[in-house]
Protein backbone atom coordinates (compact mmCIF):
# COMPACT_ATOMS: atom_id res chain seq x y z
CA UNK A 1 0.00 0.00 0.00
CA UNK A 2 1.18 3.53 -0.80
CA UNK A 3 1.40 6.33 1.71
CA UNK A 4 -1.70 8.47 1.82
CA UNK A 5 -1.46 12.21 1.36
CA UNK A 6 -4.95 13.47 2.11
CA UNK A 7 -8.22 12.10 3.45
CA UNK A 8 -11.68 13.41 2.56
CA UNK A 9 -15.00 12.40 4.03
CA UNK A 10 -18.05 13.11 1.91
CA UNK A 11 -21.70 12.56 2.57
CA UNK A 12 -24.31 12.32 -0.11
CA UNK A 13 -28.04 12.05 0.32
CA UNK A 14 -29.74 8.96 -0.94
CA UNK A 15 -32.78 9.61 -3.09
CA UNK A 16 -35.80 7.92 -1.56
CA UNK A 17 -34.17 7.43 1.82
CA UNK A 18 -35.44 10.39 3.85
CA UNK A 19 -32.78 12.13 5.88
CA UNK A 20 -30.24 9.34 5.42
CA UNK A 21 -26.78 10.21 4.25
CA UNK A 22 -24.30 7.73 2.86
CA UNK A 23 -20.76 8.39 3.96
CA UNK A 24 -17.76 7.71 1.81
CA UNK A 25 -14.19 8.23 2.86
CA UNK A 26 -11.52 8.76 0.24
CA UNK A 27 -7.74 8.97 0.48
CA UNK A 28 -5.61 10.22 -2.38
CA UNK A 29 -2.72 7.90 -3.16
CA UNK A 30 0.24 9.48 -4.92
CA UNK A 31 0.69 10.01 -7.78
CA UNK A 32 -2.85 9.52 -9.13
CA UNK A 33 -4.49 6.74 -7.16
CA UNK A 34 -7.36 6.71 -4.73
CA UNK A 35 -8.55 4.56 -1.86
CA UNK A 36 -12.19 4.83 -0.80
CA UNK A 37 -14.63 3.15 1.56
CA UNK A 38 -18.42 3.08 1.80
CA UNK A 39 -20.66 1.35 4.31
CA UNK A 40 -24.28 0.57 3.46
CA UNK A 41 -27.13 -1.30 5.12
CA UNK A 42 -28.64 -4.51 3.83
CA UNK A 43 -31.30 -3.04 1.55
CA UNK A 44 -31.33 -3.38 -2.22
CA UNK A 45 -32.15 0.33 -2.62
CA UNK A 46 -28.58 1.02 -1.46
CA UNK A 47 -27.21 -0.64 -4.58
CA UNK A 48 -27.71 2.70 -6.31
CA UNK A 49 -25.60 4.37 -3.61
CA UNK A 50 -22.83 1.82 -4.13
CA UNK A 51 -22.85 2.51 -7.86
CA UNK A 52 -22.83 6.25 -7.24
CA UNK A 53 -19.88 5.73 -4.91
CA UNK A 54 -18.07 3.80 -7.64
CA UNK A 55 -18.90 6.54 -10.14
CA UNK A 56 -17.42 9.20 -7.86
CA UNK A 57 -14.32 7.12 -7.19
CA UNK A 58 -13.62 6.11 -10.78
CA UNK A 59 -14.21 9.69 -11.98
CA UNK A 60 -11.19 10.73 -9.94
CA UNK A 61 -8.91 7.96 -11.14
CA UNK A 62 -6.94 7.24 -14.30
CA UNK A 63 -9.37 4.62 -15.58
CA UNK A 64 -11.26 4.55 -18.87
CA UNK A 65 -15.10 4.64 -18.82
CA UNK A 66 -15.53 1.05 -20.03
CA UNK A 67 -13.25 -0.31 -17.31
CA UNK A 68 -14.99 1.91 -14.77
CA UNK A 69 -18.23 0.23 -15.83
CA UNK A 70 -16.73 -3.25 -15.48
CA UNK A 71 -15.33 -2.69 -11.97
CA UNK A 72 -18.61 -1.05 -10.89
CA UNK A 73 -20.51 -4.05 -12.18
CA UNK A 74 -18.28 -6.49 -10.26
CA UNK A 75 -18.76 -4.54 -7.02
CA UNK A 76 -22.51 -4.24 -7.57
CA UNK A 77 -22.83 -7.98 -8.22
CA UNK A 78 -20.84 -8.83 -5.08
CA UNK A 79 -22.93 -6.49 -2.89
CA UNK A 80 -26.22 -7.69 -4.43
CA UNK A 81 -25.14 -11.28 -3.79
CA UNK A 82 -24.47 -10.53 -0.12
CA UNK A 83 -27.82 -8.76 0.25
CA UNK A 84 -29.74 -11.54 -1.44
CA UNK A 85 -27.95 -14.65 -0.18
CA UNK A 86 -25.64 -13.62 2.66
CA UNK A 87 -28.24 -11.75 4.70
CA UNK A 88 -31.54 -12.19 2.89
CA UNK A 89 -34.18 -9.50 2.38
CA UNK A 90 -35.23 -7.54 5.45
CA UNK A 91 -32.48 -8.86 7.74
CA UNK A 92 -30.30 -6.27 9.49
CA UNK A 93 -26.71 -6.12 8.34
CA UNK A 94 -24.05 -4.04 6.65
CA UNK A 95 -21.81 -4.28 3.63
CA UNK A 96 -18.50 -2.44 3.60
CA UNK A 97 -16.80 -1.78 0.28
CA UNK A 98 -13.18 -0.67 0.14
CA UNK A 99 -11.63 0.05 -3.23
CA UNK A 100 -8.19 1.10 -4.29
CA UNK A 101 -7.36 2.23 -7.81
CA UNK A 102 -4.07 3.38 -9.26
CA UNK A 103 -2.87 3.64 -12.83
CA UNK A 104 -2.20 -0.09 -13.04
CA UNK A 105 -4.63 -1.96 -10.87
CA UNK A 106 -8.08 -2.06 -9.31
CA UNK A 107 -8.40 -3.76 -5.93
CA UNK A 108 -11.48 -4.15 -3.75
CA UNK A 109 -12.47 -5.79 -0.49
CA UNK A 110 -16.15 -6.34 0.24
CA UNK A 111 -16.93 -7.31 3.84
CA UNK A 112 -20.11 -8.44 5.57
CA UNK A 113 -21.34 -10.51 8.51
CA UNK A 114 -23.94 -12.55 6.64
CA UNK A 115 -23.93 -16.28 6.01
CA UNK A 116 -20.57 -17.73 4.92
CA UNK A 117 -20.65 -18.15 1.17
CA UNK A 118 -17.43 -18.92 -0.64
CA UNK A 119 -18.27 -18.11 -4.23
CA UNK A 120 -14.77 -19.14 -5.33
CA UNK A 121 -15.69 -22.73 -4.46
CA UNK A 122 -18.60 -22.84 -6.91
CA UNK A 123 -18.05 -24.94 -10.05
CA UNK A 124 -17.57 -22.99 -13.31
CA UNK A 125 -20.75 -22.17 -15.18
CA UNK A 126 -21.36 -23.16 -18.80
CA UNK A 127 -23.08 -20.03 -20.02
CA UNK A 128 -24.49 -21.51 -23.22
CA UNK A 129 -26.26 -24.39 -21.50
CA UNK A 130 -27.28 -22.12 -18.62
CA UNK A 131 -28.97 -19.76 -21.09
CA UNK A 132 -30.44 -22.51 -23.26
CA UNK A 133 -32.01 -24.08 -20.20
CA UNK A 134 -33.86 -20.80 -19.73
CA UNK A 135 -32.20 -20.12 -16.36
CA UNK A 136 -32.27 -16.45 -15.54
CA UNK A 137 -30.50 -16.35 -12.18
CA UNK A 138 -27.06 -17.31 -10.94
CA UNK A 139 -25.12 -15.10 -13.31
CA UNK A 140 -23.73 -12.69 -10.71
CA UNK A 141 -20.94 -14.95 -9.50
CA UNK A 142 -20.14 -15.93 -13.09
CA UNK A 143 -19.84 -12.24 -13.97
CA UNK A 144 -17.53 -11.46 -11.06
CA UNK A 145 -15.24 -14.36 -11.90
CA UNK A 146 -15.24 -13.53 -15.59
CA UNK A 147 -14.62 -9.81 -15.20
CA UNK A 148 -11.99 -9.91 -12.44
CA UNK A 149 -8.51 -11.42 -12.67
CA UNK A 150 -8.34 -12.49 -9.05
CA UNK A 151 -11.19 -13.42 -6.70
CA UNK A 152 -10.49 -14.60 -3.15
CA UNK A 153 -12.72 -15.32 -0.20
CA UNK A 154 -11.85 -15.62 3.48
CA UNK A 155 -13.10 -14.92 6.97
CA UNK A 156 -10.99 -12.09 8.38
CA UNK A 157 -9.60 -11.60 11.90
CA UNK A 158 -12.80 -9.80 12.94
CA UNK A 159 -14.97 -12.71 11.83
CA UNK A 160 -16.27 -10.89 8.76
CA UNK A 161 -16.69 -12.55 5.38
CA UNK A 162 -14.27 -10.88 3.03
CA UNK A 163 -14.29 -11.04 -0.74
CA UNK A 164 -11.19 -9.63 -2.45
CA UNK A 165 -11.20 -8.67 -6.11
CA UNK A 166 -8.35 -7.60 -8.32
CA UNK A 167 -8.10 -6.48 -11.94
CA UNK A 168 -5.24 -5.11 -13.98
CA UNK A 169 -6.25 -1.92 -15.75
CA UNK A 170 -5.66 -0.93 -19.34
CA UNK A 171 -3.51 2.16 -19.76
CA UNK A 172 -5.65 5.27 -20.25
Amino acid at each position, binding site marked *: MNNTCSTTTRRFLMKGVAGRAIEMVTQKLPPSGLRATILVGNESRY*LGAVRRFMHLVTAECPINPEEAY*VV*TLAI*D*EAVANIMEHGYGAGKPGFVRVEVEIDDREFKAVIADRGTYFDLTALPPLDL*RSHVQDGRSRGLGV*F*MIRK*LMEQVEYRVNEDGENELSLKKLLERV
Partner: protein
Amino acid sequence: MTIPFKVVATEFEPWIWELKLEGSIDMSNYSKVDEALKGVFERGASLVIVNLQRVQYISSTGFGCFLGYYNPAAKEPKWFVFTQVPPAVKRVFDSLGLGGILEFAPSSEAAAALLRQKVRKSLAR
Protein backbone atom coordinates in the same frame (compact mmCIF):
# COMPACT_ATOMS: atom_id res chain seq x y z
CA MET B 1 -26.00 12.67 -15.20
CA THR B 2 -28.17 9.94 -13.75
CA ILE B 3 -31.06 8.85 -15.95
CA PRO B 4 -34.08 7.67 -13.92
CA PHE B 5 -35.23 4.10 -14.51
CA LYS B 6 -38.01 3.75 -17.07
CA VAL B 7 -39.40 0.97 -19.24
CA VAL B 8 -41.79 1.61 -22.13
CA ALA B 9 -43.23 -1.05 -24.44
CA THR B 10 -44.67 0.00 -27.80
CA GLU B 11 -45.77 -1.85 -30.90
CA PHE B 12 -43.04 -1.21 -33.47
CA GLU B 13 -44.94 -2.92 -36.27
CA PRO B 14 -47.50 -5.73 -36.31
CA TRP B 15 -46.15 -8.63 -34.19
CA ILE B 16 -42.95 -6.81 -33.27
CA TRP B 17 -42.73 -4.85 -30.03
CA GLU B 18 -40.00 -2.54 -28.86
CA LEU B 19 -39.01 -2.33 -25.23
CA LYS B 20 -37.19 0.93 -24.51
CA LEU B 21 -35.25 0.87 -21.27
CA GLU B 22 -33.70 3.82 -19.49
CA GLY B 23 -31.44 4.30 -16.48
CA SER B 24 -30.15 1.41 -14.36
CA ILE B 25 -31.59 -2.09 -14.19
CA ASP B 26 -30.73 -4.07 -11.08
CA MET B 27 -32.17 -6.19 -8.30
CA SER B 28 -34.31 -3.29 -7.06
CA ASN B 29 -36.32 -2.80 -10.28
CA TYR B 30 -35.85 -5.80 -12.59
CA SER B 31 -39.39 -6.99 -11.78
CA LYS B 32 -40.74 -3.95 -13.68
CA VAL B 33 -38.84 -5.04 -16.79
CA ASP B 34 -40.19 -8.54 -16.33
CA GLU B 35 -43.75 -7.21 -16.01
CA ALA B 36 -43.33 -5.18 -19.20
CA LEU B 37 -42.05 -8.27 -21.05
CA LYS B 38 -44.91 -10.39 -19.75
CA GLY B 39 -47.33 -7.67 -20.91
CA VAL B 40 -45.89 -7.88 -24.43
CA PHE B 41 -46.11 -11.68 -24.51
CA GLU B 42 -49.68 -11.61 -23.17
CA ARG B 43 -50.61 -9.56 -26.24
CA GLY B 44 -49.53 -12.52 -28.32
CA ALA B 45 -46.26 -11.02 -29.55
CA SER B 46 -43.06 -13.03 -29.38
CA LEU B 47 -40.68 -10.74 -31.28
CA VAL B 48 -39.07 -8.04 -29.16
CA ILE B 49 -36.58 -5.30 -29.91
CA VAL B 50 -34.75 -4.38 -26.73
CA ASN B 51 -33.54 -0.80 -27.06
CA LEU B 52 -30.76 -0.03 -24.58
CA GLN B 53 -29.78 3.38 -25.94
CA ARG B 54 -30.52 5.17 -22.64
CA VAL B 55 -29.41 2.40 -20.31
CA GLN B 56 -26.57 3.44 -18.04
CA TYR B 57 -26.18 0.21 -16.16
CA ILE B 58 -27.48 -3.36 -16.29
CA SER B 59 -26.67 -6.00 -13.67
CA SER B 60 -26.85 -9.79 -13.90
CA THR B 61 -30.44 -9.60 -12.63
CA GLY B 62 -31.18 -7.23 -15.51
CA PHE B 63 -29.60 -9.61 -18.04
CA GLY B 64 -31.57 -12.41 -16.41
CA CYS B 65 -34.91 -10.77 -17.31
CA PHE B 66 -34.23 -11.59 -20.94
CA LEU B 67 -32.29 -14.82 -20.56
CA GLY B 68 -35.18 -16.37 -18.64
CA TYR B 69 -37.29 -16.22 -21.82
CA TYR B 70 -34.52 -17.15 -24.23
CA ASN B 71 -35.17 -20.63 -25.55
CA PRO B 72 -34.70 -20.92 -29.30
CA ALA B 73 -35.55 -24.62 -29.17
CA ALA B 74 -39.04 -23.99 -27.75
CA LYS B 75 -42.14 -24.78 -29.82
CA GLU B 76 -43.06 -21.09 -29.86
CA PRO B 77 -39.77 -19.32 -29.14
CA LYS B 78 -39.55 -15.72 -28.05
CA TRP B 79 -36.99 -13.76 -30.01
CA PHE B 80 -35.06 -10.76 -28.77
CA VAL B 81 -32.71 -8.50 -30.65
CA PHE B 82 -30.79 -5.91 -28.67
CA THR B 83 -30.20 -2.58 -30.26
CA GLN B 84 -28.27 0.64 -29.59
CA VAL B 85 -26.31 -1.03 -26.83
CA PRO B 86 -23.95 1.44 -25.11
CA PRO B 87 -20.26 0.47 -25.65
CA ALA B 88 -19.59 -0.29 -21.96
CA VAL B 89 -22.65 -2.56 -21.76
CA LYS B 90 -21.72 -4.27 -25.04
CA ARG B 91 -18.23 -4.88 -23.71
CA VAL B 92 -19.73 -6.73 -20.75
CA PHE B 93 -22.05 -8.75 -23.02
CA ASP B 94 -18.96 -9.73 -25.02
CA SER B 95 -16.71 -10.39 -22.01
CA LEU B 96 -19.29 -12.76 -20.59
CA GLY B 97 -19.72 -14.60 -23.87
CA LEU B 98 -23.31 -13.39 -24.33
CA GLY B 99 -22.23 -11.57 -27.49
CA GLY B 100 -22.09 -14.94 -29.25
CA ILE B 101 -25.43 -16.17 -27.91
CA LEU B 102 -27.75 -13.17 -28.08
CA GLU B 103 -28.33 -11.03 -31.16
CA PHE B 104 -27.58 -7.39 -31.76
CA ALA B 105 -28.47 -4.82 -34.39
CA PRO B 106 -27.35 -1.22 -34.86
CA SER B 107 -30.87 0.25 -35.05
CA SER B 108 -34.48 -0.63 -34.26
CA GLU B 109 -35.21 -0.97 -38.01
CA ALA B 110 -32.28 -3.39 -38.44
CA ALA B 111 -33.45 -5.32 -35.37
CA ALA B 112 -36.96 -5.61 -36.83
CA ALA B 113 -35.49 -6.85 -40.13
CA LEU B 114 -33.52 -9.49 -38.22
CA LEU B 115 -36.64 -10.60 -36.37
CA ARG B 116 -38.64 -10.87 -39.61
CA GLN B 117 -35.81 -12.96 -41.08
CA LYS B 118 -35.95 -15.27 -38.07
CA VAL B 119 -39.68 -15.80 -38.51
CA ARG B 120 -39.23 -16.57 -42.20
CA LYS B 121 -36.51 -19.11 -41.43
CA SER B 122 -38.58 -20.66 -38.69
CA LEU B 123 -41.63 -21.01 -41.02
CA ALA B 124 -39.48 -22.51 -43.77
CA ARG B 125 -38.35 -25.36 -41.50
